């Protein structure tokens, strides 16, 4: 029997949710433990738990405090979280087309200036990355990827934008992301993809799962337009390279 793992921190998130925090940082080991705890809870549901939300470094556990209190749920979560984790499931690999810069990535030039290089070099660095879907959150299908090169890491914007386009490919802190819907964002916009990671009346509604591997392929604006029409009609556009 393996030794118990280190205990996560239990942090209150309002009166009806607990954040089970394994790390404060982007950390693959922490993410594996998040997903393992999520699987364990799916396999043996705890009375009163209503929903779980895996994120990179923590599992947010929504619960009904009328059915189970903070302390009691916290004890059960601590016990589960310290059990040895099971092996990871098989992973899928996707290739996602991106049109970089210009109207599709309005921050590309500024990012290049801030990092003291050229826009082409920023694109080359971003395309070279081998990424993993660490979590899906914020808005439907918004996929947070780990694996961003340290040379592309920079703080988020001081003032979040109220509206950024659907399909935006952006960087923020140590992460990069595929944004599905138009919405607010504090990240730096590098490009845009036609891929819909969330689309109603399509099977599956949500294209990506946490743990999927991602690479980006640059395309020109004309290709983007064609792909956008195909995606609108329900095609994935993203290419499933391996599974």
């Amino acid at each position, binding site marked *: 029997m393996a030794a118990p793992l280190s205990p996560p921190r239990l*942090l*209150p*998130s*309002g*009166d*009806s*949710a607990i*954040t089970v*925090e394994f*790390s*404060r*940082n*982007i950390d693959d080991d922490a993410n594996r433990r998040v997903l393992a705890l*999520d699987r364990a809870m799916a396999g043996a549901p705890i009375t009163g738990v*209503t*929903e*779980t*939300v*895996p*994120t*990179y*470094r*923590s*599992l*947010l556990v*929504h619960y009904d*405090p*009328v059915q189970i*209190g*903070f302390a009691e749920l916290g004890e059960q979560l601590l016990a589960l979280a310290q059990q040895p984790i099971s092996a990871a499931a098989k992973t899928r690999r996707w290739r996602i087309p991106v049109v970089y810069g210009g109207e599709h990535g309005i921050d590309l030039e500024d990012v290049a200036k801030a990092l003291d290089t050229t826009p082409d070099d920023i694109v080359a660095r971003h395309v070279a990355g081998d990424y993993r879907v660490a*979590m*899906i*959150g*914020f*808005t*439907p*299908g*918004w996929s*947070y990827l780990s694996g961003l090169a340290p040379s592309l890491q920079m*703080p*988020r*914007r*001081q*003032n*979040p934008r*109220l509206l950024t386009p659907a399909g935006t490919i952006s960087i*923020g*802190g*140590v*992460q990069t992301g595929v944004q*599905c*819907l*138009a*919405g*607010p964002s*504090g990240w730096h916009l590098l490009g845009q993809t036609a891929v819909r990671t*969330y689309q*109603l009346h399509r099977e599956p*509604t*949500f294209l990506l799962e946490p743990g999927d591997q991602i690479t980006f392929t640059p395309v020109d604006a004309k290709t983007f337009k064609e792909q956008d029409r195909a995606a609108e009609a329900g095609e994935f556009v993203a290419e499933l390279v391996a599974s």
Partner: protein
Amino acid sequence: MSKLVIPSIGPASSVQDGGRPGAQRYGLTPGGAIDRLALAAANTLVGNDLFTAAVEIGPFGAKFTARGGAVRVALSGAPRNADIAGRAVASDTSMTLADGETLTLGFARGGSFSYLGIEGGVQGEPMFGSLAVNARAGLGSPYPRPLQAGDELQTAPASGAAERRIDLPATSEAPIRIVFGPQDDEFTAETKKLFLDSEWKISATSDRMGYRLEGPFIQHIDGHNIVSDGTVNGSIQIPGNGQPIVLMPDRGTSGGYPKIAAVISADLGRFAQIPAGRAFRFKAISMTEAQAELRKFRELLRTLPDRLRDIESFDLNIEALHDANVAGHAVSAVDAGTWHVASPADILGPD
């Protein structure tokens, strides 16, 4: 089949219900009504289940016309002038619109959102179990967007049930209660004290996703970048500009700014109703207290039907008439249907 036709309606108005929890792991926020007590009260008045789909009406005015038969409705939430064919009607009271009659609503006063409960609910196609509009996700029925002039809501014909009013607890102006966490350790004790000791105002650039607050600069210890993690309704996140954003039902399911605290569930609706620009304060309470308040809030919701009252002549809502007069409306209290009072003077008394 009766329907409500909407000749005009202001922005930030949409069909809302209890929302669609269960897919936050894919980034789909639960959404739903921003003031659950007001939604439940409006539904209770017309005999619906508490969280049946109703019209959430934003701070501006709206008109609703019954077509194809009578429609029974009830208004709850933010007070506003309301009349049917020129006769004032009260909040927290059910009413029946005869075929062709129009309910006209003015601006919200002392609140932001009202709910128009509709007997029999709104006909629509549930998506993930809910009709609630989440415009960003393209969800909601019968329209996956805020309501617009010309929209129609199909509903059941009025049952002819006696009209009722509901006795709700008095609106509290007490501080909005919070529990600290999950990232309150990103702030010094002095900053947390500043957060609690300061007056805050809700910015006009707020919506169902988040309410932006205006007040003192809330300083992070280590900057405003954290690794994104999960959010809840009422999460208070602090972006780089030091001005808090309180996350509302159409929030992102995760966010990358430190969350100093969260508004307790029992106070979310009350917070949501604070008008933009009005000063308010926060108060920190313990988890035990917060969960006790949630139990009390649930009990209030559960016992709403016990708060229904028959309408008698002297129940004619004095406030509604008074407000109508203040706003300069000519009040005609003559009404063959619901009211039995000759003139406002009879109600308002000699003073």
